[in-house]
């Protein structure tokens, strides 16, 4: 058992943290909230140059051959100042879709431009009636000779407003399939929507979008298994980011308790507020421990081992992460309810993370339905 980062991972954490602090302070995110894109292509390229977009991909496609541990380190560190570049949609969702389901040729075609920060990716999986079940897909893909025709509507495609290539799930007679659709494909309409956390997503309408067979990832029918893993990677990424956010909120709140004066004393002297802060501290530590487990098991060969760890961590983020976020606002009092104060920016991001990749109810039910949960009770 080893919960330590290795030397390289520690260096990575240091580099990303100082980047977040110095090159992307919260003021940058605040400004980009009003921007049409919400993130800066120049900073994205810089991240590419630093190698952050290549860490989990194998060396044969010019990646750095790392693991999800590095991805989680980067996400947690970037969360400290809410760096808005599309790391999750591009690296974790689009990138891993290619890694898990794409041929070597497809990986070599789509991954390097993204890893260099010249393009970004997205995953279009959610639909009006799917909620958190990625296997409910009404978007249809019909084979037409050597190509496919896609028709349907996808919702809340993270970074869909800006992505160059979008991985789209669709139903075929053989089951679910994933296609890489270019943003300028004929018949594809992307409607940019603002999200509560200051980011953007897209609604994607596909009206007879034709894609070549070279843009189908793997065999038709293999999509469900890939999506199950992608949703777990997304949930784990949300947990890693959530730990960074919760940690930041706890630190800001404790600092506030040590400076704000009322009744002639620092409010941190009041026991009721001390205990609330301790409750927040406990939730942060539990989130961190469970996220570590999810990060270490998200690549497990045993599907149920992965599902149990990820669902547990995501359910904890829903309960504990939200507690930290809510209490941070409460302990800041009136100023916490203003747009001017930074605490609210973290609060909104935490709320967004809890609406993505499965909510508490979804993950608790999934956890309870695993074979292991009721094994050996007779």
């Amino acid at each position, binding site marked *: *058992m080893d919960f330590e980062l290795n030397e390289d991972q520690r260096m990575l954490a240091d580099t990303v943290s100082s980047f977040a602090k110095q090159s992307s302070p919260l003021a940058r995110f605040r400004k980009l909230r009003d921007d049409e894109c919400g993130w800066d292509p120049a900073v994205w390229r810089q991240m590419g140059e630093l190698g952050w977009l290549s860490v989990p991909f194998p060396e044969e496609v010019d990646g750095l051959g790392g693991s999800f541990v590095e991805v989680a380190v980067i996400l947690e560190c970037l969360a400290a100042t809410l760096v808005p570049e599309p790391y999750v949609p591009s690296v974790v969702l689009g990138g891993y879709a290619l890694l898990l389901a794409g041929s070597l040729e497809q990986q070599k075609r789509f991954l390097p431009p993204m890893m260099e920060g010249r393009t970004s990716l997205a995953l279009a999986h959610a639909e009006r009636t799917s909620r958190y079940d990625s296997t409910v897909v009404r978007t249809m893909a019909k084979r037409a000779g050597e190509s496919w025709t896609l028709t349907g509507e996808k919702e809340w495609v993270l970074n869909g407003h800006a992505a160059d290539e979008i991985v789209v799930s669709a139903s075929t007679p053989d089951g679910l399939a994933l296609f890489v659709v270019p943003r300028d494909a004929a018949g594809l309409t992307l409607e940019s929507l603002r999200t509560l956390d200051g980011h953007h997503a897209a609604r994607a309408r596909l009206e007879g979008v034709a894609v070549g067979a070279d843009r189908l990832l793997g065999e038709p029918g293999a999509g469900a298994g890939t999506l199950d893993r992608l949703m777990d990677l997304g949930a784990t990424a949300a947990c890693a980011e959530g730990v960074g956010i919760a940690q930041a909120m706890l630190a800001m709140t404790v600092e506030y308790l040590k400076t704000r004066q009322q009744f002639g004393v620092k409010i941190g002297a009041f*026991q009721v507020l001390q*205990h609330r802060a301790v409750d927040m501290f406990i939730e942060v530590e539990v989130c961190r421990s469970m996220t570590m487990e999810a990060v270490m098991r998200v690549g497990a060969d045993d599907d149920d081992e992965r599902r149990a760890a990820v669902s547990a961590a995501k359910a904890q983020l829903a309960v504990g992460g939200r507690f930290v976020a809510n209490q941070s606002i409460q302990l800041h009092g009136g100023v916490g309810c203003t747009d001017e104060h930074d605490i609210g920016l973290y609060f909104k991001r935490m709320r967004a993370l809890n609406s993505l990749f499965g909510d508490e109810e979804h993950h608790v039910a999934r956890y309870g339905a695993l074979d292991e949960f009721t094994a050996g009770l007779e």
Partner: protein
Amino acid sequence: MDLSFTPQEERFRQEVRAWIAEAMPADLAAKARVDGHFDHAEVMRWHRILFEKGWVAPHWPTEHGGPGFDANRRFILTEELELAGAPLLSPFGLSMVGPLLIQFGSDAQKKRYLPKILSGEEVWCQGYSEPEAGSDLAALRTSAVDDGSGSFILNGQKTWTTYAQYADWIFCLVRTDPTVKKQAGISFLLIDMKTPGVEVKPMLTLGHTPAFCDTFFDNARVPTENVVGPLNGGWTLAKALLGHERTLIAAVGTSSRALRRVKRIAAATEVDGGRLIDRPEWRARIARLEIRLRGLKMANYRALAGAQLGRAPGPESSFMKIRGSEILQDVFELAMDAMGHDALSWFNQEGAVPPIEQWVAPVYCYNRATTIYGGTNEIQKNVIAKWILGLSDR
């Protein structure tokens, strides 16, 4: 980062599992299967079996009779014992005064006391709380006055001295200097329970077990050489010991086993032709609690992995007493709810309720103590607020 155990560690786990199955006497094993309550004699029988195997104090250094296990092996042994439902050994000697003597005791004290703690020949209890000194432990008043001829004369009362009626020795915090700041006048003293003037009065707990006692000292004469560490230095020892106790009562294994029992009850409980555990709201309730427990377990793993690297328990372990005791209470609350009307049964003859439900109600009641003993959870929060978050009272 890596969660796996080495092949050698996995082999060790198999070895432990096989040994427990073979070594546990049939009557204890039968009780273990239904999570029955083990009485003092049964606990001590199991203590001696573990002692003979050399595994009774896995966390002690080899020079004092420990098996020399690293943190991972200690963890595996503890986990396997808990999963088997083996009796929980009395912590007062093995986990409390023993480690404290190893850390602070004189050579003569180590030689005198440690072997008999290991063998189970001498049973210990703890004398901290007093009627007027609970959370405010430093307000304790039991006085030890040096008579100038090698003895203290003890007067006062200790309370919640768990299982003092079975104990041969008690370790106490006593006031040896009433003239200084209250924390500065306390010493850590070992007292033979057979000393004239020491009297024990057991009382019933909420669980109807005689676990609690009052222990009275009426001019009891105790050798001054029985002080551990410096005279008037007892507060430092008390704090060190509370650290041990805090991680000890995270009770991950106990809760894991109890939660499994909840599932077994819910699987065996038929409701209108179906199983209780198959009701979605029940499935979700149990799953929520198991997820909470899993979080505690992971925090515990982190602390253990840190210990393996020689790191002192950090912030990740300081809260485990709080969370662990809450979870243990919640698990038994869930068990009571799962039992429906059967939860009403109170010490009836066998067969009144299914065997698996037999001990739930008394343990449920007794477990209200878990958020109180070892320093109430509120006191624990004061400690974390001050020492980890840096929040002061001014």
